[in-house]
C-alpha cells in the first residue's frame, strides 16, 4: 500500500510539467555570460582557498618548528597570501567588466 502511494506521489509530480504544453513563443534570451561568470568565480575562489590553505599550513608548521624565524615566515606568508588572492581577484574584475 505504501509503495503504491509513493508511486502515485511520484506521478503527481509530473503535473508540474504542464507548462511544456504552452505555446512555444518568444523565449527570453538566456544570459550565458552571467551563468558562466557565476561558475568561473566559484571555481576561482575555490582553488584560491585551497592554495591559501596550503600556504598557511606550511607557514604555521614552519613557525612551530622554528619560532625564532617569525619575521621571515610572517613576511613570506603575507606576501604569498596576497599574491594568491590577487589571482582570484582577476576573475572578479573580468566579471565586472563583462557582465551587464
Amino acid at each position: 500500500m505504501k509503495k503504491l502511494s509513493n508511486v502515485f506521489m511520484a506521478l503527481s509530480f509530473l503535473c508540474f510539467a504542464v507548462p511544456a504544453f504552452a505555446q512555444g513563443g518568444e523565449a527570453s534570451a538566456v544570459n550565458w555570460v552571467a551563468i558562466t561568470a557565476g561558475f568561473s568565480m566559484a571555481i576561482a575562489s575555490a582553488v584560491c582557498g585551497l592554495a591559501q590553505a596550503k600556504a598557511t599550513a606550511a607557514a604555521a608548521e614552519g613557525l612551530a618548528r622554528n619560532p625564532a624565524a617569525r619575521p621571515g615566515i610572517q613576511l613570506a606568508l603575507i606576501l604569498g597570501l596576497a599574491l594568491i588572492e590577487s589571482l582570484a581577484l582577476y576573475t572578479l574584475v573580468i566579471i565586472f567588466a563583462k557582465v551587464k
Partner: protein
Amino acid sequence: MHEQLWFTQLLNGLFHGPVTALLRMLHIEPAFPGSPISNSAAMEVLVLLFLVGLFLLIRSRLSVEQPDGLQHITEMFVGFIGDQAHEIIGHGSEKYVGFLSALAFFILMCNLMGLVPGFESPTAVPVVPLGCALCAFFYYHVQGFRRHGISYLKHFAGPIWWLFFIMIPIEIISHLARVLSLSVRLYANMFAGDMVTFVFFSLVPIGVPVVFMGLHIGVAFLQAYIFVLLTMVYLSGAVAEEH
C-alpha cells in the same frame, strides 16, 4: 547633473572654469563642463590636503625629550616601513623610505576614506590604483638606473647571457604584469569591499553591513601594506648588487 559628493560639488563650484579651460587646452572635452572634477579626483585632493596638514602638524610638534602620542604613532609607522625596507632591500635602504612611507600613507588614507559617510574611496575607481602602480613602477626603474647606470639593462637579459633573445620579452612582459597586478589587486579589493557592503545593506540594513565595514578596515590596512611590500621587493630586485 550627475551625482556628486559634497566635497566634489564644492571644488567644482570654485574651480570649474580654470579646470575646464586646462582640459580643453589638452584637447580633452569634459563630459560635464560645469563639473569637470570627478569624485575620485576630488577625494584624492582631500587626502592630499589632509596628509599635508597632518605632516605639518607632526613636524611642528616634534620633540626629542618629550615625544607626544602623535609622534609615537608616526615613529611606529615610519619605523615599521624602514625596518621592512631594511629587511628586504638590505644595505642602503634608507633613501627609499621617504617615497615608500608617502605611498603607504596615501594608499591607506584613500582606502579608509570610503568608510566615512559622505566620502568615497578614490581607490575604488580603476584609475587611481593604476596611478599609484605607475608611480611605483617608474620609481623602481629610475632607482635602478641611478644605482647601476646603463648596465641596469643587463638585468633584463637574465642569468645566462646567451639566452637574452628569449629572456628579454619575458622580462618585459613580467614587468608590465607587475603594474597590472599591483593596480588590479588594490582596485578589486576596494571595489569588492564596497560591493559586498552594498549587497548586504540591501538585504539586512541594520547591523550586518557593519561587519563588512569592519572587514573592509582590515583589508584597507592589509592592501596598503601589500602594495608597499611588493614595491620594496621590486626595488630590491632593481638595486640589488651582485657579489
